[in-house]
């Protein structure tokens, strides 16, 4: 549209007493236009684009060749695999049950399979807002008891499997789920405690958070293994897995407390005053007004912490528990299949990625859903 026609339109509109309807300028469309705007807008952008293109050409074909084209896909012996230049997926075919379930008795591995299915069902149904009803809490209790019974056995004709033989994906899911399910509420309480008016409570919370945050997770796990039994009376021992789980819960709660505190600090003072002036009690004010808003703001850093902890559970390897990473390492100790570590780690990397990426995607969805009200 030329300036003259535009002016004429405005003139006409002004004469008729209404504002002119003017179309926005037509964007430069098409593939060339897109490339121009996004990849070659300036000379330095063009150089970066070309450099990245060169790097991709160097890396991607080789990877595709290794993963797909030259890979051994059918069940085959280790010798066949060694002869091939690509990945040996026959190794995964041979060992996937060991990687997924660790040293859990082979004949009983339907039990951890079912346990993982229960975990996934619980987690997925909790993601749907339609299911956010009181019975969901009940479902979690029933589900987790079912998981414990399935894994441990000893009742209902199931043979007893000691926790030392648990491993792989169910162990990773268990450590992460329990760690966050108990660590999150504990973290919220610590965050509230840190902002409390009561000096003793505040001191306790600050001390707890700073102490736990001040040491690495590995140290906490070692403490749980080595130091903790010293504090127990003679003859009493607590299961290794439980000790590690408690260590993870404590560690997660300290980190989550700081994330939640960040959200709490973002709530304007007026919200507290409005709740006070309406006569709401401290817990009503916190539960109905402050936390719903604070947690909503905290979703991105919360999910960041969740994802971090899901992966950090792999540190239990150090104290002799065989989670997914531990089991993958174990699979490599078979003399017949030594050396296929790339395939083994690639496989568990994909499993980790699926879980972490889902969490990330879900958090984006949740943010969008929950922001309906506050968006203008």
């Amino acid at each position, binding site marked *: 549209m030329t300036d003259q026609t535009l002016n004429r339109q405005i003139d006409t509109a002004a004469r008729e007493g209404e504002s002119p309807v003017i179309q926005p300028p037509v964007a430069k469309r098409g593939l060339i236009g897109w490339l121009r705007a996004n990849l070659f807008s300036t000379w330095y952008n063009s150089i970066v684009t070309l450099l990245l293109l060169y790097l991709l050409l160097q890396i991607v074909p080789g990877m595709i060749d290794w993963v797909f084209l030259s890979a051994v896909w059918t069940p085959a012996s280790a010798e066949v695999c060694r002869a091939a230049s690509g990945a040996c997926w026959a190794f995964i075919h041979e060992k996937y049950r060991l990687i997924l379930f660790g040293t859990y008795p082979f004949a009983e591995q339907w039990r951890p399979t079912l346990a993982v299915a229960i975990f996934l069902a619980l987690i997925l149904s909790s993601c749907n807002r339609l299911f956010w009803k009181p019975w969901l809490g009940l479902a979690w209790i029933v589900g987790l008891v079912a998981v414990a019974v399935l894994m441990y056995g000893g009742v209902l004709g199931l043979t007893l499997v000691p926790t030392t033989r648990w491993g792989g994906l169910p162990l990773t899911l268990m450590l992460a789920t329990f760690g966050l399910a108990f660590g999150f509420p504990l973290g919220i309480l610590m965050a509230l405690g840190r902002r409390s008016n009561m000096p003793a409570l505040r001191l306790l919370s600050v001390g707890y958070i700073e102490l736990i945050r001040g040491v690495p997770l590995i140290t906490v796990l070692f403490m749980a293994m080595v130091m903790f039994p010293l504090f127990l009376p003679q003859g009493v021992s607590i299961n290794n897995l439980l000790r590690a789980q408690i260590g993870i819960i404590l560690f997660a709660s300290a980190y989550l407390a700081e994330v939640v505190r960040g959200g709490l600090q973002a709530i304007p003072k007026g919200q507290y*005053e409005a709740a006070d*002036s309406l006569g709401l*009690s401290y817990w009503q004010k916190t539960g109905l*007004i402050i936390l*719903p808003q604070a947690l909503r703001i905290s979703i991105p850093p919360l999910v960041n912490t969740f994802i971090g902890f899901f992966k950090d559970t792999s540190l239990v390897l150090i104290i002799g528990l065989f989670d997914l990473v531990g089991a993958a390492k174990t699979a490599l100790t078979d003399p017949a299949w030594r050396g296929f570590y790339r395939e083994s780690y690639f496989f568990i990397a994909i499993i980790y990625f699926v879980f972490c990426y889902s969490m990330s995607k879900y958090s984006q969805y949740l943010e969008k859903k929950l922001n*309906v009200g506050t968006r203008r």
Partner: protein
Amino acid sequence: MSMAIEKTAAAGASIIQMNGVNKWFGEFHVLKDINLAVERGERIVICGPSGSGKSTMIRCINALEEHQRGKIVVDGIELTSNLKNIDAIRREVGMVFQQFNLFPHLTVMENLTLAPIWVRKVPKKEAEETAMYFLERVRIPEQAQKYPGQLSGGQQQRVAIARSLCMKPKIMLFDEPTSALDPEMVKEVLDTMVGLAEEGMTMLCVTHEMGFARTVADRVIFMDFGEIVEQNVPESFFGNPQSDRLKLFLSQILH
């Protein structure tokens, strides 16, 4: 509950009594020997330069600010550090803020029914009927299912007034209710407040709306440097100010 609350004054006496109330923010003496008695149904407008302690004074009435010396009795209940007394007083005293302070994560309807349901234990259906009644009184019943962020400033402030009224308070405190509003929205909020005043609500308003003070107030109070400098019925307050400080203040705000 009510057993534990000492009734220190007989019914029929002033609904709010402040005797020798003092407050400091750190070293700053923000309220100096405030003595004030408010009768039932009385409408009081409080004005004064910024920083004169007028907001702080009305915020002491529902314990959003704690006074450090003196005595405050609201509806026969003395305001002490006893949480039961504070809760009992807050149930009877509504407050409207300059910044509205609606709960942004709840719909208008949920904003209005939250306190009646949780504090007064009113059944949900009854609370919603009351909420609709007050939304109609502030003339925005059609906004009930919207979120505060979707309303204009004037509408939000009217929702805030309705939210306080849903608790059926005996006293309403207004802390500069129109100061954060665009000029064209001031009137709709003032109209709502005038309507409320005509029904006999006990009201204390901190405001710079002198037109409102003239037409509605039974008494206008002028505060400066943490003191009540002068108080009078509107005609005398505006027509025949006594102190120099009030004369100066009036000359500054009434052009």
